[in-house]
């Protein structure tokens, strides 16, 4: 993984506050767990029916009945709980998740998120992503700033089918930390050695700049 991606993951981890209940989606968000220390007080939730997720285990140490929603073999910690899928999503829809971190194909300046379907190319189904995006109290996205072809993923409007409308609060990319505000995208922080001009060029919508110095991560 590139240094820029590792830094965005480490930066995103700093937005997890002590005491939160958090769901980490498949892809970059899963890596955030590596930045949460053994004594950090947080409850990780997975859609397939567990709270209190502990470290991922190597195959030789894995329990065949204990995976996260992405299929990784995980471990329990003192206080973990197992439950059925209806209970798991009741937790999501009733607002018990303080935060979810998700991947994205596109994010729009109005907070719309598209991360489950590219018509004609990729349509595996949304899994639990719709409920997470729509009902977690805070939704942040971890993504590369542009796609593999260099096209912006932060846009005025999504072109792909939505996962949920108006749901995204913050975006962590390999170039910047950007908040979704009523006025649109607002730049909060810059990745090391990235310039405002570069972020603007890689963003497919207006970018509001803060007054004064911009922190780096």
């Amino acid at each position, binding site marked *: 993984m590139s240094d820029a991606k590792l830094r965005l993951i480490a930066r995103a981890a700093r937005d997890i506050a002590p005491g939160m209940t958090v769901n980490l989606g498949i892809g970059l968000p899963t890596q955030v767990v590596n930045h949460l220390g053994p004594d950090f007080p947080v409850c990780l939730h997975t859609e397939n029916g567990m709270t209190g997720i502990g470290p991922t285990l190597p195959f030789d140490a894995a329990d065949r009945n*204990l995976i996260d929603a992405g299929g990784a073999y995980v471990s329990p910690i003192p206080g973990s709980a197992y439950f059925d899928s209806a209970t798991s999503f009741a937790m999501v829809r009733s607002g018990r998740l303080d935060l979810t971190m998700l991947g994205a194909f596109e994010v729009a300046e109005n907070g719309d998120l598209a991360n489950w379907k590219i018509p004609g190319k990729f349509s595996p189904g949304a899994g639990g992503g719709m409920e997470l995006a729509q009902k977690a109290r805070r939704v942040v996205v971890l993504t590369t700033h542009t796609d593999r072809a260099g096209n912006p993923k932060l846009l005025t409007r999504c072109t792909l089918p939505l996962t949920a409308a108006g749901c995204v609060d913050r975006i962590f990319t390999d170039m910047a930390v950007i908040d979704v505000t009523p006025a649109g995208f607002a730049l909060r922080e810059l990745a090391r050695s990235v310039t405002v001009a570069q972020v603007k060029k890689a963003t497919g919508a207006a970018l509001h700049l803060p007054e004064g110095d911009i922190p780096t991560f």
Partner: protein
Amino acid sequence: MKLPDKTTTMESAIAAIPDGATVMLGGFGVPGTPFLMIRELVRQNKRDLTIIKNDANETGMGVDHLLVAGCVRRLITTHLGLNANAIRMMNAGEIEVEFCAQGMLAERIRAGGAGLKAIVTDIGIDTEMGAGKPRVEVNGETAMIETALRADVAVLHAAQADPFGNLCYAATARNFSPLMAMAAKTVIVETEKLVALGALAPDHVHTPGPFVDHVVHIPELSEEYAVVRR
């Protein structure tokens, strides 16, 4: 009094499933998937099935055997990301696929099991998954109607069962199974351990026996139940 004994053989339990049946299968990935029962469905050459399951397992495992053998007409599911064969068959029109949001699949099954006809929700309302579903106003908010799901048969995997069909599941193998146990006319369970009546503490039962029709002991697991080394 004594609770009835529902133990039977896999062959006879599966033989009672007719072609064209709607079959719920427990499991989320490997945990909870009744792999041996799925093999028996394939062996008995069932046709025209509608399968309701969270996912289609991975290529070469579980539900994929049903797909490859041509047993499945329709699949109601949430995610096929780990089964490229299922996606190919969907795109080629060889199977019909209905995608649900995962929590909606769970809640539609739970509603079916609870004797409800439908649920009212706002999940997916601004997406293409909400297209065409009837809308209702509830307390000033727009919501939509999702129909409840029931099946002819649910086929489930338990870690432990007694002969009456009281069930315990292991860790994340529980997932959809307690919901499906409530939502099918006939519930068939394969169990790793068959324990005596009374061996499961009443407080520890996950699915109570009255939901279960047939209990099949599987003393040996196949390789498909093991840790997947990707």
